């Protein structure tokens, strides 16, 4: 019997749908029940329901042979698991966002990029690193210039080190490390969008599905860090020691998503 770890929450229904199409049927009351362990009708699989952030952990430890979770949580957990399939649902982006216009004040003539919302990689760090376009007296009178994540010398932030609120401290740290920008990370567990609005943080790194929540809160994407969607996770040892069962599961799911 293979154990599959599934996320409670928004991934549960599409995960069960997918498994059902692959011929793996779980009891109908799974989503509504308070039980956490369910056997499939044919007794070949066992589903365990866990928090999204824990799926990768269950699979890494081998407590589950397989799991379904978003790429975002796998990246954040840095779990050492196989990820053979993109299950093609739960699409979203992990993005840096900030208050509208905060990144490129129009006084500096960068309104065009601001309007574009997403900064393309060609415009990323390096561009405009050397010459601040603000007049010299402004530099003298205001706070010292700082480097913001776009690689521009800018000083609309009140702090010398920008603060970033996020549910993804590791992804965030990797992103800023790769750009050589010092940040203070503020780990939050929900309502991340609030942080820049009330001055807790200058930036957020969060999941963006439609961009609606950002927009409603007067925020915009500064840069997309990476795309995310649901992944099939497989324990490394199980892939070797239960090869036939695991490969059958992979193939069955692959047929459905094609």
């Amino acid at each position, binding site marked *: 019997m293979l154990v599959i770890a599934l996320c409670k929450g928004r991934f549960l229904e599409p995960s069960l749908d997918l498994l059902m199409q692959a011929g793996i049927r779980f009891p109908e009351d799974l989503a509504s029940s308070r039980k956490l362990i369910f056997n499939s009708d044919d007794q070949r699989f066992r589903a365990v329901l866990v928090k999204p952030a824990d799926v990768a*952990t269950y699979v*890494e*430890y*081998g*407590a589950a042979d397989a799991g379904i979770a978003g790429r975002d949580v796998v990246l954040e957990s*840095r*779990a*050492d*698991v*196989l*990820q*053979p*399939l*993109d299950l093609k649902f739960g699409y979203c982006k992990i993005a840096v966002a900030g208050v509208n216009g905060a990144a490129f004040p129009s006084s500096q003539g960068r309104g065009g990029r601001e309007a574009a919302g997403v900064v393309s990689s060609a415009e990323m760090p390096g561009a405009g690193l050397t010459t601040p376009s603000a007049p010299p007296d402004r530099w003298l009178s205001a706070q010292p210039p700082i480097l913001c994540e776009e690689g521009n010398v800018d000083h609309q932030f009140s702090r010398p080190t920008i603060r970033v609120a996020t549910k993804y401290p590791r992804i965030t740290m990797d992103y800023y490390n790769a750009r050589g920008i010092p940040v203070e990370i503020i780990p939050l567990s929900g309502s991340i969008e609030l942080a820049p609005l009330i001055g807790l943080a200058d930036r957020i790194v969060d999941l963006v599905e439609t961009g609606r929540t950002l927009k409603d809160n007067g925020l915009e994407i500064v840069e997309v860090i990476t795309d995310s969607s649901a*992944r099939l996770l*497989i*324990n*490394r*040892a*199980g892939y*070797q*020691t*239960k*090869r036939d069962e695991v490969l059958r599961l992979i193939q069955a799911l692959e047929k459905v998503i094609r």
Partner: protein
Amino acid sequence: MKSYAQTPPGTQIVIGRAARRRRALERTICSVFEGWSYEEIIPPIFDYYDVFVKGMGTGPEEQIYRFIDREGNILALRPEFTSLVAKTVATRLASSQKPIRLYYSGEVLRFEKPKGGRQREFAQIGIEHYGASGKTADVEILLVAVETLQRLGIQAFQINLGSVDFFGGIVDRMELPADRIAELKEVLNVKDRSGLEALLERLPLGDRRKKILRAVPHLTGGKAVIAEARELVRNPRSVEALDHLEEIYSIFQSLDLAQHLTIDLGEIRGFDYYSGILFRAYVRDLGFEVASGGRYDGLPGAFGEDLPAVGFSFSVDRLEQIVTPEISEIEAASIAVDDGFDKALQLRRSGKAVRLCL
């Protein structure tokens, strides 16, 4: 207030019966090693930092606990044994008759997030075989691994055998920058097909090469996999690797052990020092490998003596999760203090265990 019940993350205290079980496990393993004429080497628990950097490459250096002694030397707590053994063989044992067979048993220290069965301090026990290239030494150490697992009473185990030369031969030809190769390894490592596709779109490679890379993660199974791989590659380095694996597989077949061997050409993880075969041993119902090893011919050369080398190590902590060695109860005679200490000494001289009742 700090609680003294806790030890630092990733460390543990082993007491009493658990400690006796661990020692019994270690003794069983060592007796197999000795049965194959491996001699013990007891290296220091710390050495100069650059010994390990030379050995492990620059990737895992963040995991090394280092410190500075009073003379300003940078020292490191051993994060693995292979570098230490290779250095010893390349210097102190340079003029010894080859091959040299050594085994070690002890704790290593790595700064890792303690998870997934990983500790920061963990026990390793393994062998190293120096001075012989080619399949004979490779087969020898694989057989030692197989016998060890069998002696521990483990039946359902798989040894996954690959070769760094198979993948190496493929990427050699592609002339990609190092960071692209690293990205490629990253997606292949987790068998991430969609990640591979996204990467292939950005790489200036022809269709034939892309086809090879798409196939790599799935080249795993029995002997048929080698034939399948032969259809894909023509470069001599990869082809030689396939010949070599096929020979080993045939030997395992003739010994009736092939059921424990899986050819895995998609396995490309491991320290930089690996140069030929690469393998990991898995046991059913344990989520991690219990042993890993391979060939590292370049390593002794880094310490001044070119020598072929091959070896592996077992993770004692992981074996403990699946093996419970038999331990005999200690039968001790209880001695009341009133009987006098001479009574206790008498029993001890006759080889009996005593327990003084105070």
